[in-house]
């Protein structure tokens, strides 16, 4: 008989419910010897695993040993208590998005994106913004409905804000790849902090992205959305479009009819 799945005690699944099976691989900076094999076992045990099986050990170059390990994870979590705010956006194609922008927004949506601080990794920003996009999903530059300014890397936060103001941006896209010492969090805070100081906290749709950025974290820090690894340009496009449509519904605001100026700088 198959064991009952207990969501209050969720564990990884190998071939038997509740077995806690995990596969992992790593390299130790030592020669692959029986001693190294034992060391690998001890390290995995140290992490809280049991039934450790070193399936494979081989030499890489000189003084490195590569391991493939299977083990059981003894710990579990209560799945019923996991809470993740979900981004629920419709999955429209880029053609559909462009079409809606033409019909409803009636002007291109203006985006300004940057990697701020010392972060020089534009891979995430480029994956979303550049023509070529990511995983076969074309980038926002390629949409007719978006006018994109990609400021690139190592942009001071105040320059990003200045540019967003100058371009009359609808949304700011902040990409944070580097996360050592939680630098991504402090850089994300810096943007919201500086916007607030200049009375611009409600002016832009704020979108953050990065490997350690979650939607939950983004909301906590005052952003409208957070995207992480696996997010596609069309996901970001759909989100921004929905935000724009919601704004339109609430204010009837698109530039054709817009007269009143926002409170902050212009």
């Amino acid at each position, binding site marked *: 008989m198959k064991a009952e799945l207990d969501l209050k005690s969720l564990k990884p699944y190998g071939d038997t419910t509740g077995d806690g099976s995990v596969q992992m*691989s*790593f*390299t130790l900076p030592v020669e692959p010897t029986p001693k190294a094999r034992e060391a690998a076992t001890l390290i995995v045990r140290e992490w809280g695993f049991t039934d450790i099986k070193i399936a494979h050990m081989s030499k*890489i*170059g*000189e003084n*490195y040993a*590569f391991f493939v390990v299977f083990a059981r994870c003894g710990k579990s979590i209560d799945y019923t208590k996991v809470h993740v705010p979900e981004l629920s956006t419709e999955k429209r194609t880029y053609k559909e998005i462009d079409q809606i922008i033409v019909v409803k927004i009636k002007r291109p949506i203006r985006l300004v994106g940057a990697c701020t601080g010392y*972060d*020089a*990794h*534009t*891979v995430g920003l480029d994956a979303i913004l*550049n*023509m*070529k*996009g*990511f*995983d*076969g999903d*074309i980038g926002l530059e*390629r949409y007719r409905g978006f006018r994109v300014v990609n400021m*690139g*890397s190592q942009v001071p936060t105040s320059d990003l804000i200045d540019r967003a103001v100058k371009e009359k941006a609808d949304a700011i896209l902040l990409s944070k790849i580097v996360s050592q010492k939680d630098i991504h969090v402090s850089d994300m805070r810096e943007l919201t902090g500086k916007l607030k100081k200049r009375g611009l906290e409600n002016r832009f749709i704020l979108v953050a992205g990065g490997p350690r950025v979650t939607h939950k974290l983004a909301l906590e820090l005052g952003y409208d959305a957070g995207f992480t*690894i*696996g997010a596609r340009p069309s996901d970001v496009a759909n989100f921004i479009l929905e935000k724009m449509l919601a704004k339109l519904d609430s204010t009837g605001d698109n530039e054709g009819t817009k007269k009143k100026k926002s409170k902050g700088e212009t």
Partner: protein
Amino acid sequence: MAYSATLPLSTRKIARCREIARSIGGEVAELVESHSTVGTERAVLRLLGFNDALQWEGLLFPTSNFLVDQLKASERLNEGALFWVANALLSTGLGISELEQRTIKEGFDIGKVAPFDKSKVAKLANQLAKDSFRKLVQYRKTRSGLKRKLHDPVSEKRPLKYVIVATGNIFEDVTQARAAVMDGADAIAVIRSTAQSLLDYVPQGTTTEGFGGTYATQANFRLMRQALDELGQEQNRYIRLTNYCSGLCMSEIAVLAALEGLDFLLNDAMYGILFRDINPRRTLIDQHFSRLICGVSDIWIMTGEDNYMKTTDAKESGDQVLASQFINEVAALNAGMTHEQMSIGHAMEMDPSYKKVILYEIARAQMTRQIFPKCPLKYMCNTKYKTGDIFTSHAVDTVFNFIGSFTQQGVLLLGMPTEAVHTPFLQDRSLSIRNANYILNGSLGISNEFGYRSDGEISRFAQKVLDDALKLLEKIDGMGLLKSIEKRYFADVSRTVEGGKGAAGVFPVERKNYLNPFFELMGSKI
């Protein structure tokens, strides 16, 4: 039905493509003939030996930049940097390195030295160029001697295994490269720090902090070259070193690579124009000079057509790739390069979920093989459809390796299971090389065993790509290359002649007043 070892491609159409490409190349030739750039002039200075740097406003600033800025300020660039260096040497009686030191230490300004007798200056300039040229030839001989002395994997008649290292720290790169070579890699590419191509100077010294890669500097080149040479001796195998020669310092990187014994350079103006938004005229002019240097130094250039496939549907964009390859071939021939030095680029980038995708990939790879029979083709693995599922990724790489072997590509840019996740870990690269070792070893000579159906799907696909490329080349020829770039003919990106980075560094020259004997010495056809 008939089977043949090759695809039934029309030789008449291929010849026609080449003819049109030559006509298209004329536009670039005219541009090169009537212009130079600050980058090209800095490369000339580096060839002469100006490779030091000075502290300037808190930066380590290359003297070649400093000197060109001096000449620009005094409106002397139109004669070429070499002319004014020779002028300064005659007027001061100094040698090159003394002049460089005086520039660094005393702020000596070659833009302010009174003009000397013109014919004497020209005579000295020609002599200086000849001396530098001879040095390059000597460096090349040293490298080819090493290739003869050690076992050269090119002689094994299988694709070379090319992997990247990208830690940002040149010393850590050496560790990673050593392990890769021990696993069986034939070529090591040190990925450059993000956006180095946009820097208008080459950083100086060994570097330990980069972003997504390691700065290309002369000192870093030397350190890696030395490590690979030592390892090559241990393994009795010649190991090739690769870097990136694109962007605003294209021709300067070519000089440094030649001086430090690099073997391959990723070199493609079109890449810079389309994907880095470098000014088209700037980079086409710099490219010509960089290719002259590569030709003389026997550095293979690797072209970047694989990138077009990342922005467009690779199944549909075969014609752009082929058209660009023909245009790149002409540009390299105009710089006196041989086909054996042209690692013409392409990639396996079609959506893996397409039905019969492997057939189409074989068709394109084999077609490219047949159209450029003497070129060691650079074949790039799939990156566009990689997501983080490292296991499927590894499976795709296996197919890539097999097609590379089956269609006899020159160099395989091996895929990493962790593509789209991070720059490769030691183990990622090791798994990738093990995969290639298995496939290349196990399928050695397989292309001699099978033939293609003349009326088969593979033949039909290849024929269509060739037909489409011919049509595209005709259209490009009709409107001109620069105009066609503006019209989004390549990679669906539009760039204008006046736009992009580095446009201000282009200036017109009159050949009768402009002195650059390297063109003739290096066999320029322009």
